[in-house]
């Protein structure tokens, strides 16, 4: 039996607009799924389908209107914030906006380490940081002591990933981590997530609009449309034999280098 990391039950986010004549919109409607240990689950869908809403609710950045999120068998409302973020970490779309441009890139790493390992001495901290950077394929001499503008988007994104790893999280929420990164650095991040899954057993919730990346990286996929799940299953089942009309339509319009539209 594979350990279940997170279970999401009937998660709903409702937005109400208007004062007199109220209008309801659902950011997410009745979303349920679970992620097992060492599994990459992809959420795919077009813009406005509620992928990021779900991610933000799991990261406790948005309060769900209804539904439960159960992490390691305990409802997330029972967790203390600090304890929760030791288990769940996230990386986002825009690596540039995650840094303060007045500080060197070490700043994010030092802040993270002083939260999680505040008792160890400085030499030990430095060793941990350089080890973690090695995991994400960076050398400390190339990146530490530099400012964000001196590094490329791919490098910045990998440093943020290293920051997440300092907490040794069980679940990583990757919200379109590759869309602001150059095409040739994209593969590096995807391969890195795969490696983390295999070696450290981290579970990943990978959110993307790029079907190709989802197909490459994930074990299971969930297709969302307007806040609702329309199709779910193992990657190849969904992408090679889609059952739902919407999924079929979506897959037919994906540009691919392996086929041409008639």
């Amino acid at each position, binding site marked *: 039996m594979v350990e279940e990391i997170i279970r999401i039950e009937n998660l709903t986010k409702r937005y109400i607009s208007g004062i007199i004549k109220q209008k309801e919109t659902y950011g997410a409607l009745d979303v349920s799924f679970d992620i097992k240990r060492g599994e990459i689950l992809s959420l795919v869908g*077009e*813009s406005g389908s509620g992928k990021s809403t779900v991610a933000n609710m799991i990261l406790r950045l948005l309060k769900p209107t209804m539904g439960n999120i159960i992490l390691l068998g305990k409802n997330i409302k029972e967790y203390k914030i600090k304890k929760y973020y030791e288990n769940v970490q996230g990386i986002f779309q825009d690596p540039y906006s995650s840094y303060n441009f007045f500080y060197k890139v070490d700043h994010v790493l030092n802040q993270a380490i002083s939260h999680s390992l505040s008792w160890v001495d400085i030499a030990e901290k430095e060793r941990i940081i350089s080890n973690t950077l090695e995991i994400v394929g960076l050398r400390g001499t190339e990146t530490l002591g530099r400012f964000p503008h001196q590094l*490329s988007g*791919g490098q910045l994104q990998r440093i943020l990933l290293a920051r997440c790893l300092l907490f040794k999280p069980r679940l990583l929420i990757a919200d379109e981590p590759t869309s602001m990164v*150059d*095409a*040739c*650095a*994209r*593969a*590096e991040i*995807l*391969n890195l997530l795969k490696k983390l899954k295999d070696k450290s057993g981290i579970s990943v919730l990978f959110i993307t*609009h*790029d*079907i*190709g*990346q989802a*197909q*490459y*990286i994930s074990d299971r996929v969930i297709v969302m449309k307007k806040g609702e799940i329309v199709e779910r299953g193992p990657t*190849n089942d969904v*992408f*090679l034999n889609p059952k739902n009309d919407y999924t079929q*339509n*979506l*897959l037919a*319009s*994906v*540009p*691919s*280098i*392996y*086929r*041409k*539209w008639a």
Partner: protein
Amino acid sequence: MAELVLKVEDIKGYYKGSFGTVHAVDGVTFDIYKGDILAIAGESGCGKSSLAELLTGSPMPMLHYESGQVTVNEIPIYIPKPEDKSKLGKWRKEQEKLSNQTRKDVLCKIIGYVPQSSQDSLNPVKKIRKFILDVMKQRVGTKPKKQIKRSKEDIKYDTLDGQKVRINFKEEVLTRVREHLEKLGLSGDVLGRYPHELSGGMKQRIVIGISTLWNPLILIADEPTSALDVTTQKILIETFMHLREMGIVETIVYISHDIPTLAQICNKCIVMYAGKLVEFNSMDNIIHSPLHPYSQGLIHSIASFNPDGSAETDLNSIPGRPPNLRDPPEGCRFYDRCNQRMDICKEEYPPFFSPNGNDSSRVACWLYKK
């Protein structure tokens, strides 16, 4: 032999400012024939958009024309820069005059240019109809009016959408515009709407519609699909195909970093790296048998959707980052990241070789030296 539409000869354009001189486009040569759909591919910062701006004859303020020539339909759009520094002032005035002339005669009528994220430049407080009439005013000189007194103003004629129109008659112009937008798959009532009432794909199609009103010979589209969903993207690409079938635009230059999209519509492809053209080839060859080590790396780093799931290959990325274009290296610009580098690559920039023996494929790499 197909008709030559655009000839680009060793064009150079540098960004100049307090930050120094950035060699953004550094000697690019290629030809476009009638009926071609040419893709310009490359990672961000390689000079794709700068090249497109140079092709239109009026690059943005920071980008300066340096040398080379662009010939559109046998009209040269640059005056070569004199070597004598004392003549620079005179040259600058002449070039300005020519640019203004180009903007009037060539832009829209011979070259249609859709800049990057131009769908966001529609005026939010004006209806689309008014916006288009403003464009008319820019192009023609007088704003189309409801009624004109024949004695006061002369009637001007122009060809819109392949038909002769009295350009200063508002109703006549708008009918033509409405028909033109209908050809692009938009309903006629978009003219009466504000930009915020339209979806991203519709806005993009309106912008393309405005750029093709005069049925230009060649359309340059800079990342038209990058901000759109896959389904909208498909509709837009079908619009481009439709434009060709209807004979509105026959030649298209399509700039994108998204190679799967380029593969759908283009027949020829240029791969750029750090301001230089590294490979010119047919689109199929770029995907299935790329020649330059950079093109190979680029193709191998794409996670593309595979509808039959057969070719499950590992992705590889290119290590390192492009050189600083303020001070580009003497030799091959890909030297630091190349896995097949040789000693000669560091010293000398490679000329173009044609490994297939004909002119249809050219590659700037010493590996193909015979």
